[in-house]
């Protein structure tokens, strides 16, 4: 009876440990998967903001470095996940998310600065062209006036 009890207890303990281990691995795998998906989304969002800023003419080179750090960590996370190293994959994925924090905000600020600079530049361009055209018309006006005067003098000289 005692032997049976011990054996049954041992089997039960083994079963419990196995279940706990499998659950732990599955939870670890799921956590890693969720973290990787979140990291992918964070990078996509950050890149979207950077691409939008770039489309307005902003110089976004300074934002490529943190994006790349995040992308490299995400690649490491996915590679670790493929190699069934779930805890490592989770860690890399979390680090990846951390790298893009603030990138969207910075991109937005760059975009605003560029829009203001572009607006000022456009105004400057307009004023410069207006000044140039005015100068040209003034020159034409002076030429026409002097030309008319010359013709009048020639006409007066002929009459005399």
């Amino acid at each position, binding site marked *: 009876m005692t032997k049976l009890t011990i054996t049954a207890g041992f089997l039960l303990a083994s079963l419990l440990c196995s279940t706990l281990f499998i659950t732990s691995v599955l939870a670890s795998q799921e956590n890693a998967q969720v973290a990787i998906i979140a990291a992918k989304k964070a990078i996509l969002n950050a890149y979207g903001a950077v691409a939008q800023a770039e489309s307005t003419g902003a110089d976004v080179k300074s934002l490529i470095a943190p994006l790349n750090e995040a*992308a490299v960590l995400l690649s490491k996370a996915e*590679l670790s996940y493929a190699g069934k190293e779930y805890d490592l994959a989770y860690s890399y994925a979390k680090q990846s998310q951390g790298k893009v924090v603030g990138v969207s905000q910075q991109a937005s600020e760059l975009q605003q600065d560029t829009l203001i600079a572009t607006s000022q530049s456009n105004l400057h361009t307009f004023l410069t062209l207006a000044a140039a055209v005015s100068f040209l018309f003034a020159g034409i006006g002076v030429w026409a006036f002097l030309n008319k005067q010359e013709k009048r003098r020639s006409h007066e000289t002929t009459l005399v």
Partner: protein
Amino acid sequence: MKLHSFRTVIFVLTASLSLLIASPSLQKLLVFPVGDKISEMWLLGPSHKVEYPSNTTTDENLRLYVVVNNHLGSSAYYSVEVKFRNQTQSEPNSFNHTHSTLPSICAFNFFVADNQTYELPMDISLGYELDRKIPLRLNMQNVTVNGVTIGYNSTVIDWDIAKAGFYGNLFFELWRLNETTGAFQYHQRYVGLWLKLAT
């Protein structure tokens, strides 16, 4: 000397001055021809040159560099997919601009700003063994990329009678994020090399 004698000179001077004043603004309005918008991709061997290993043994480390250059006019989000095939499996096709239908072993994502270059170092080793039942056949076991071993036993390599050896093709496809769909799309660029697998 009367002023009207210099009317032409005055006109030419004012016209030249107008052009000078307007030139910085005109530069902004002028549209210059733009070159082709493309991405370049190439492969470098262990010594950073166009010299590649042609043979490998099981679990032997191969150091390669995949280099991508962005000439698209804006920054891009790329992905390099690592694939391995035998002589009969699906390969990328330059004429049809299609990628291999094989699943990738792994992928590396990175960003490249316009007119910039990105270099991706990789340490790859192939794990394989001779098939014990079928003669002249290699069974792929795994592929180790940057220290991480990934199971890859779906590919078998048969003896190539013409070349007298077991040959496998390690190749890298370039994919690029489509900002509209939010998914990576094959960018019609790939590089690769054939390796003789020694036993």
